[in-house]
């Protein structure tokens, strides 16, 4: 088409317009409001059947010229029901639009495009800005919990800003790390690195692509699903300014029920006296443990005989301790002498009420030529663990600029700095500092922190923070630059090239000041630099061939280069605490190491979408991916996706049903995606350095090469229906899926004489099969009150389908033998076997406690305790095979570690300007080993604080007691071969650090009360003529609690073992949002 043609067309157009301009014109004006409250700027007002259109201004006012003063006006606004008004001679029409909650025709972002859900044939869930704008925490991914059917989210700790593990439809592997979906933020293809520090306030929407037909366009890395995140952009209209201040407090939601120091001293000393026949003095005296005496004034522990204190330090000193310092006295059950001690509740020392402040500012607007959105935020959130917290400064700019009729540019710039103070080791901090016996001293007499037990990893959190963690400086700087263009070549045909640069730079410096535990002043510094360069080019053709046939086709290419550079340095023995960096450390102690790696992905893709009258829908896509991680002959893979749908409600024959089933779409899809979760070493073998001997650096072959490695492929089939009832007041999205992951990239076990445990191979296949339901219901909707509810449910079952022939039944790999009473044989279980789910847990079956020594005399030989003689108070284990020997053959099946049924519910109530949200989610079907409780009840290491459990009637205390929990004492412990609580055996592929004891296993089923929040929008009328357009106040409580039978702090544990996790806090949050 040349310019002449265009002019000619425009001419005809004008002629048309002129010819219809015949009758008396009128100007219609009015104000548009939404849900009877706030005015709506930017609402489209259009005269039906014409090109005459206008929009509302910032105050919601509009004016439109109607040529003959007659006709119908159409008011349309995204997120609201479209309304039609017949002019009828009136010139003033105030219109109220009702918010539209119909999920069946919303726009969703798909790979390299946008599509209306009406014509969508794949399985995509959308989470909109509403879920992010008042997020209580910093990592936006957390807001997905319970909102998307088929997405299960696991939080391994409550550290602010921490990244959850996300599984979509059960993932495709057996390792949580390998199951992370691909995350795409504003076009940049990557991992969770892209999103962790993104301000939730800047997010417009997240879409979760679940089936292979929708994800196949992302090919090689899309097997675990794709999450597409879109940040806010400006809209044409007046400038909008929002300023929001939020604050809140996080608290420890559930606490461990510890005994008091006095109860601890009494019970543990009494039990040592009663049960320990070999060396009780070792535990009772000498200051070795929390219950030992022999601690002089100002030593690490406080317990001592009162008379010793008085004799050595004088009555006056002792009286002052009791009167002014809170020291207590009690009678020793062993000697009947008076004891003196100071109680410190280390749970209270460890956890704090954590304050949060957050400021968000954004500015957006635009005109015909350009649009812009600028957001900036600062948040400072303390963690509930002493010394932890997260700070973040961020800024985001999204802009578009129309260069000409044919060319437009868009730019995306984002920057953030985060400062993350987290515990060096969660395990050490939680299971060791919280479990410190309450008799240990918190501070020395000079006010400085005492170390507690005082081995590097067994110390008081207070001490660790004071000397070590407060000196840590850990910052991550992230920069994103995106520049794209759109060239409208022909009507319907456009080309969009884009270039992205995304860097993330972690600067870490850790220093421990001189103290009695670590005297070397160790320093370590890390510089982790990551750079992504991505170049995309997408050619799009979108055309209504006739009014009935609509096609959309894309052809694209993408090149991604990921570059990693890390530098790690360490040193020690600085002469001073003043300099926390490496420059002060002893030269001879300094070590430095650097590392570089590049990974390239090169792709071509195309998609073709067709619909006939929006009734018959079809889509197909193909991606051709190459990855540098694979062996030479297997670098490239092809990933197709096909889907089709039928909007049955548009058929004539549907008319009689229309009143009830207002819409009904059937759809089905099939596709293939890949997983390239590999290092170059897996395909080409790795020789690693660093094996030093006599100061020389050695090299060793650490990974076996497998030149035959190829893509892991997931083929998925999905069939679903989108159903609207009662004029779409109730919508249902149903899906059944069947995902088969074949040629799994998995560590194939090798026989030991190869020198290696495994080689990464394409190894067998697993199937994830499930059902999902998303329901949205809008039972009440009028100008004053509305209630929306969204509910989702998903069920997933993952089974190993095919494993390589290895001569074993079900081709099982790993595992061990247990006795099966039904068949009276030893069966091999555990590991991975055909037809079985993964994540199985097995444990010794606890049958209670021997009441007396006589009862215990004939106890079966217990392999775990080396056949030690059993006494009253020892655990009774089921000897399933009755062979007089308790070993791993006697273990029973406890359950699976991940829930198979998950989901959630979001309720929103609006009454005039007030709205309330209630969010719930649930997980059903998993078991948890309460390892923390086992460890504590077993008095593990003789030096753990005691839970109130040990005082209860279920614990064996003396000869003749009928009890369920074995005796509480050092001589019941995991150590010294007692093993009444914690058992070793990991022979079945169990968690080797677990309790492996049925007593401590329970079901993890839970219903979580995730959010109760209120928002109140002050009406403009109230504000009068101030420059403030609106004020919104919110208040909410998040992570309120659970309905569950699990007895630990949180049932959200999908790893099978609760060793004492950093729990998610309960969060109270308030905010004030001003719109200007």
């Amino acid at each position, binding site marked *: 088409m040349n310019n002449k043609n265009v002019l000619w067309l425009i001419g005809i157009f004008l002629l048309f317009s002129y010819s219809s301009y015949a009758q008396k014109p009128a100007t219609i004006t009015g104000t548009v409001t939404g849900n009877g409250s706030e005015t709506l700027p930017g609402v489209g007002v259009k005269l039906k059947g014409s090109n005459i259109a206008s929009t509302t201004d910032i105050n919601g006012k509009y004016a439109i010229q109607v040529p003959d003063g007659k006709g119908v006006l159409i008011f349309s606004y995204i997120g609201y029901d479209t309304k039609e008004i017949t002019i009828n001679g009136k010139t003033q029409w105030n219109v109220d639009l009702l918010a539209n909650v119909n999920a069946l025709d919303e726009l969703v972002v798909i790979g390299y495009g946008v599509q209306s859900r009406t014509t969508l044939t794949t399985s995509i869930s959308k989470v909109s800005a509403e879920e992010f704008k008042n997020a209580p925490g910093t990592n936006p991914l957390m807001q997905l919990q319970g909102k998307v059917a088929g997405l299960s989210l696991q939080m391994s700790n409550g550290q602010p800003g921490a990244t959850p593990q996300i599984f979509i439809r059960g993932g495709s592997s057996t390792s949580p790390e390998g199951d992370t979906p691909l995350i795409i933020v504003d076009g940049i293809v990557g991992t969770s690195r892209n999103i962790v520090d993104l301000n939730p306030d800047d997010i417009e929407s997240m879409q979760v692509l679940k089936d292979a037909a929708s994800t196949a366009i992302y090919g090689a890395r899309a097997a675990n699903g794709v999450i597409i995140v879109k940040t806010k952009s400006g809209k044409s209209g007046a400038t909008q300014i929002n300023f929001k201040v939020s604050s809140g407090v996080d608290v420890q939601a559930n606490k461990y029920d510890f005994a008091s120091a006095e109860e601890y001293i009494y019970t543990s000393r009494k039990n040592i006296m009663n049960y320990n026949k070999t060396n009780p003095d070792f535990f009772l005296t000498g200051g070795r443990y929390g219950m030992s005496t022999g601690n002089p004034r100002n030593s690490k522990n406080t317990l001592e005989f009162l008379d010793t204190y008085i004799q050595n330090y004088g009555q006056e000193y002792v009286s002052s301790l009791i009167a002014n310092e809170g020291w207590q006295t009690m009678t020793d059950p062993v000697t009947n002498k008076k004891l003196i001690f100071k109680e410190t509740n280390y749970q209270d020392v460890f956890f704090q009420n954590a304050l949060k402040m957050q400021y968000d500012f954004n500015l957006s607007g635009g005109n015909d030529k350009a649009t812009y959105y600028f957001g900036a935020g600062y948040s400072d959130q303390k963690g509930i663990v002493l010394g932890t917290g997260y700070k973040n400064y961020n800024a985001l700019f999204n802009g578009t600029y129309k260069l000409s009729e044919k060319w437009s540019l868009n730019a995306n710039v984002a920057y953030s700095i985060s400062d993350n103070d987290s515990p060096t080791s969660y395990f050490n901090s939680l299971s060791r500092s919280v479990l410190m016996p309450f008799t240990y001293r918190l501070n020395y007499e000079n006010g400085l922190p005492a170390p507690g037990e005082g081995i590097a990893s067994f110390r008081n959190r207070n001490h660790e923070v004071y000397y070590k963690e407060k000196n840590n400086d850990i910052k991550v700087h992230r920069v994103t630059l995106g520049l794209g263009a759109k060239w409208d*070549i022909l009507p319907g045909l456009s080309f969009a090239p884009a270039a992205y640069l995304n860097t993330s730079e972690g600067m870490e410096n850790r220093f421990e000041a001189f103290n009695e535990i670590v005297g070397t002043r160790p320093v370590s510094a890390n510089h982790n630099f990551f750079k992504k360069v991505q170049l995309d080019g997408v050619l799009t053709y979108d055309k209504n061939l006739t009014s009935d046939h609509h096609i959309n086709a894309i052809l694209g290419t993408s090149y991604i280069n990921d570059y990693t550079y890390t530098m790690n340095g360490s040193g020690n023995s600085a002469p001073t605490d003043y300099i926390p960096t490496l420059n002060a450390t002893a030269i001879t102690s300094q070590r430095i190491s650097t590392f*570089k790696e590049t990974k390239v992905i090169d792709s071509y893709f195309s998609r073709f979408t067709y619909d006939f009258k929006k009734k018959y829908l079809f889509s197909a896509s193909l991606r051709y991916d190459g990855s*540098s991680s694979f062996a030479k002959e297997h670098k490239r893979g092809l990933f197709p996706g096909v889907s089709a749908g039928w909007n049955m409600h548009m058929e004539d024959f549907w008319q009689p049903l229309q009143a009830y089933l207002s819409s009904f779409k059937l759809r089905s899809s099939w596709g293939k995606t890949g997983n390239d979760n590999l290092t170059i070493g897996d395909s*080409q073998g790795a020789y690693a350095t660093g094996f030093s*001997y006599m100061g020389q650096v050695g090299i060793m072959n650490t990974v076996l090469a497998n030149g035959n490695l190829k893509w892991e492929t997931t083929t998925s089939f999905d069939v679903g229906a989108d159903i609207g009832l009662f004029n779409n007041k109730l919508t249902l999205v149903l899906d059944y899926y069947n995902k088969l992951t074949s040629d799994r990239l998995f560590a194939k076990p090798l026989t030991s004489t190869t020198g290696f445990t495994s080689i990464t191979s394409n190894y067998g296949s697993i199937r994830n099969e499930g059902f999902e339901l998303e329901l949205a219901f809008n039972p009440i909707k009028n100008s004053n009150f509305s209630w929306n509810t969204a509910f989702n449910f998903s069920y997933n079952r993952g089974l190993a389908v095919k494993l390589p022939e290895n001569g074993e039944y079900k081709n099982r790999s790993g595992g*061990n033998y247990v006795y099966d009473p039904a068949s009276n044989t030893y069966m091999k279980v555990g590991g991975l076997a055909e037809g079985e789910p993964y994540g199985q847990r097995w444990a010794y079956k606890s049958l209670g406690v021997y009441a007396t020594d006589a009862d215990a005399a004939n106890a079966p030989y217990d392999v775990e305790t080396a056949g030690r003689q059993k006494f009253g108070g020892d655990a009774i284990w089921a000897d399933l095979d009755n062979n007089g020997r308790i070993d791993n053959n006697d273990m029973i099946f406890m359950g699976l570690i991940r829930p198979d049924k998950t989901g959630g519910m979001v309720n929103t109530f609006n009454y005039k300007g007030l709205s309330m949200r209630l969010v719930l989610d649930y997980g059903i079907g998993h078991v948890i080993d309460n390892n923390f409780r086992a460890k504590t009840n077993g008095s593990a290491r003789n030096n753990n604080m005691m839970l109130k459990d040990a005082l209860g009637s279920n614990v064996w205390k003396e000869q003749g007691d009928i009890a369920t929990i074995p005796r509480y004492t050092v001589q019941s412990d995991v150590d010294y071969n007692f093993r009444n609580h914690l058992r070793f055996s990991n022979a079945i592929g169990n968690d080797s650090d677990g309790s492996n004891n049925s007593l401590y296993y329970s079901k993890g089923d839970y219903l979580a009360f995730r959010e109760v929040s209120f928002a109140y929008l002050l009406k403009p009328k109230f504000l009068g003529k101030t420059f403030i357009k609106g004020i919104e106040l919110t208040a909410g409580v998040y992570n309120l609690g659970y309905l569950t039978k699990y007895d630990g702090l949180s049932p959200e544990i999908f790893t099978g073992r609760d060793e004492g996790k950093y729990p998610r806090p309960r969060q109270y949050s308030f905010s004030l949002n001003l719109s200007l």
Partner: protein
Amino acid sequence: MNTYIKTISLIVIVFFTSSCSKILDVKPVSTITSENYWNTENDVTGYLTGIYYDLRSSVNTTFYLEDRGDTFSPGLESGLSSAWQQNLTSSNAPNWIGYYNLIHHCNLVIKYGNIISFTNGNNKNRALAEAHFIRAFTYFWLLRSWGDVPIVLEPTESDQIVLPSRAPQSQVMDQILNDVNLAITLFPESGFVNKSRASKPAAYALKTDALLWKAKVLAGGDASLSEALVSADLAMAGVSLDPNFANIFSAKNGQEVIFSLYFKREEMFDQTGKKIEKSDQYGSTLKPRDIFVSDATNVNDIAFSRGGARSAYAPSQKFRDLFVNTDVRKAASFIVATATNGSTIGIFDNKFRGTVYPSDDRYWENDIIVYRLAEIILFKAEALAALNRVSEAITELNKVRNRAKIGNYPGVETKLAVETEILDERFRELYLELKRWPDLIRFHKAGTINIYNEVPNLGAKGNMPLFFPIPRTQIDLNPNLTQTLGY
């Protein structure tokens, strides 16, 4: 219209066909793959350094060669192994994978070292000699622990795996002697370059050790004994007895040491979080944590540490009773921590005392002494006694006794009495040097003692086999493997 067709064609050409397959050939920078290794002599020598690192880790345990013997009684903290408890089964059996990993590394060096040219032929021969030595040493370790073991002489380089069966002990012994003899031939110098690495004298020491095993356990007869005598003499070249017994362990590579493995405290961690040198020598499992001995009257004489020590074991009563008070080795071998009221808090090893770093902690960085002269002298005495050359055996025995200040052998000069004394002398001299369990087997098989009367836990079990079981799951992975006899 033509312009647009041209433009679109240009877009398609520029964006969609510009790349070539080379775009995916990313050369690894900081990692080495199999494709770009084994080119130069540095690849061989660097790899050999890695092998020593691995060897040190693999032998840094009392599990195989001490725990099953009578050296240990329970210490203050838990940690008694299934070996000490004589509680081994096919489900808790130790996996030999670490040793086969070491063998894989040696096999790589032997395979590629032979085809890579060196600027100096001696360096090539020495590298190959060391690899053959370590492979022999590792097979000897396997032989003494498991008896029949698979012989693997090729490195694993793909997922196409052969499934070997267990070769008879005699065949394993032949392989060991082949490798040792090859090492002896290849070592270019007769003495030491560095005692922390294998040498010709170390190879002779290993050969002597292996031949004695062959003679006594594998019915090698007098021929093996005579050969052992020759080999022992050659192993003694260039070393002499250290007049100060305790000094052997505190110093590094003193005058008596033939081959040791180097330990050094090192704070640095590499990329994968491994400490790049080692300071946690196995002796730390017989040492107290500070709190255990803080109120002992002799706390200043005791080697304790805040971290890294765990007194899982204590030297046994039987061992401690073997010493007369004049024996200089007594105080240098164990120490009793005494409370103010005179009671015993605990008994700890005193041989490997570690090093105190001021304002830090004590680190357990004593070398593992693999072979030293006193043992070779006792080997010689053992071979002589077995050949019924009793008086010559006593002459050798007395060399060790006199250094320990306990005078000449006072007992009767019968073969049995002298052999029994040599076993006891080895216990006193080489306690905690990973010798006791093989010694017991050797003297048991030769009829000097009944091992079931010597080791309390073993006696209680009656028919417990002397070799270790293999995990049942390993048999599942490789059906050609059979379980060790008796399990």
